[in-house]
């Protein structure tokens, strides 16, 4: 075999990693990069389209980056037009932000437009990334740990233990989650702070997500158990835990990687679903899930497509995750063989 696949895998993996790193940096640097706070409303600019950063003015001459303010043509239809008569220059590194409009009150810099509250979608996207990605990744990790452990034990021990554990995971799956959340909500104080919600959601997601993982891991462990090497390890006197963790679970690595990339987007969306029963973050905090939920109407497709930008961002992250993780396991095997 040639070395080409490995090399290729390497570059693809770098691409994936750079997507992820860029997102992470942008999210971490949100207070610096984002032109606005997440809850800043521009009441005259509901659903305003993105402001284009321009270099040439109406007269055709070149100048420093500037934007045109939006003027509202129809309030009910939320149609806007650029006011070409008064270009507004951008202010760099002023007031602790990378870039903002020099006249924020009249002509805010809305790189991805405004939502139906008149809030800057781009800034919310950056701040939302912190919350949504941290929550989804943590929950996915938790689900993987729980699922791998349960699935591993069930597959390794087999018999009644296996049956009981798998039925328990079925139970978690078919239980009406909405009522569980409602009951949990009723037991908590009226106002919830963000860290409490974060911890609670991460725990719920980890538990609800784990059956999917457990199911696959169990199948893999079960077949691997029968293989020679596991039997050999066992006969050499390795403890059960050691056989399971060192020899059997690694075989499920590829499966786990795919499952993580499935769970992350599902959790990002589920955060908005749980906010329906009151288990949501305070609305001043932006999250991709709630942004997408707000965009779930035909107006977003037909008239305000920039509201869908969290979906695009989610795709980028999941794709990056997929490229990075997946090729690492496959790539590692290629390299080992070469």
């Amino acid at each position, binding site marked *: 075999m040639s070395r080409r696949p490995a090399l290729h895998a390497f570059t*693809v993996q770098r691409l994936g990693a750079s997507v992820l790193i860029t997102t992470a940096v942008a999210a971490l640097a949100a207070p610096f990069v984002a032109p606005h706070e997440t809850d800043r409303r521009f009441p005259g600019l509901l659903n305003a389209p993105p402001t284009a950063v321009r270099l040439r003015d109406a007269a055709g001459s070149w100048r420093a980056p500037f934007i045109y303010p939006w003027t509202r043509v129809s309030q009910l239809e939320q149609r806007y037009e650029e006011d070409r008569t008064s270009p507004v220059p951008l202010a760099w590194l002023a007031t602790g932000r990378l870039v903002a409009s020099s006249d924020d009150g009249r002509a805010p810099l809305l790189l991805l437009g405004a939502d139906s509250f008149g809030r800057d979608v781009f800034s919310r996207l950056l701040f939302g990334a912190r919350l949504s990605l941290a929550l989804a990744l943590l929950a996915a990790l938790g689900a993987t740990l729980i699922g791998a452990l349960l699935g591993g034990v069930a597959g390794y021990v087999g018999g009644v233990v296996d049956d009981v554990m798998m039925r328990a995971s079925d*139970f978690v799956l078919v239980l009406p989650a909405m*009522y569980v959340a409602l009951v949990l909500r009723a037991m908590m104080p009226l106002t919830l702070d963000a860290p409490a919600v974060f911890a609670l959601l991460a725990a719920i997601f980890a538990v609800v997500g784990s059956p999917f993982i457990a199911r*696959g891991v169990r199948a893999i462990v079960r077949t691997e158990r029968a293989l020679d090497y596991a039997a050999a390890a066992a006969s050499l006197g390795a403890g059960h835990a050691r056989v399971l963790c060192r020899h059997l679970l690694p075989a499920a690595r590829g499966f786990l990687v795919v499952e993580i990339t499935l769970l992350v*987007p599902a959790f990002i969306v589920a955060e908005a679903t749980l906010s329906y029963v009151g288990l949501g973050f305070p609305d001043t905090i932006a999250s991709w899930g709630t942004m*997408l939920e707000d965009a779930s109407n035909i107006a977003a497709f037909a008239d305000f497509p920039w509201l869908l930008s969290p979906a695009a961002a989610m795709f980028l992250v999941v794709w990056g995750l997929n490229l990075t993780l997946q090729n690492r396991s496959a790539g590692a095997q*290629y390299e080992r063989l070469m």
Partner: protein
Amino acid sequence: MLFFLLRRLVFAGFLVFAVSSASLLLAELAPGDYVTGTLGFSATPEEMAALRARYGLDRPLAEQYVDWLARAARFDFGRSLANGRPVADLISEAAANTALLATTALVLATFIGLPLGVFSGARAGGVLPGMVRAASVFLLSMPPLLTSLFLVFLAARTGWFPIGGMSSIGPGGPGGNMESFEYVAIDLLRHMVVPVLALALPLSAMFERLQAQATAEVIAQPYVLATLARGVPRSRVVWRDALKAALRPVASIYGLVVGTLLSGSFAVEVITTWPGLGSLMLNALRARDVYLVAGCAAAGSIFLAAGTLVSDAALALVDPRARE
């Protein structure tokens, strides 16, 4: 084998019992009930009390539960509080509608997702596999609500397919001259396109991803490399020898997929107005229609148990070592 099936049956029965009981209990613990939901503010406390009495919601939880259990044991699952129809009727009607979608989507997803997965997993590089992967990731990272809404929007804009529902009103109209069988069948198929796609697209993407990963791993195994080195054609190795071993992950979660598909998808059924189990359950959950919720949860657990059995059978088929 018989013992194995019997054990499964006992466990499935226990699951159904546990899930429906837990649903009833949770519904009772959750704040508000069916009466606060339908009457809200507009009623006097006396009217609320009267309505609770009419539905028997004023009795202690234990009594309601024992009563429900006794009737459930005779296969009487109570009536929906919202519209008074028997829960069993409502569920069987909706389940038939959902099953139609679910099986079509499952078949479609299997026949699209698995071959694509083998294809993109067998070659690590290349533009085409990269595109397949990107498309899958794209579909998987879209919220189901947006996918359904977008397909409905597309159907509306192009006018190719009906926007929702299961049937259109024929020219003669119901009650008038009956439409021919062909008309009804074609009409149903046309209505199925959007919801089936909304279900099948993300599903095939999931199958593709799992299958691609497994295929890549199997192909990197020494024994496959050895087979290749012996001069066996690559395509034959990939499609015959590696495929079987690589089916394991997909086969293992197939049961879950079958179970959840048959229980109906909230997003797809509500957006495409498909009168299935998903929208039935969602309405019941929101209205606190307790017996209907318990019934839907029970149906869901039966589907899941059945799906698991299918899954285990499939697993045993692709990998004899997994057999008991």
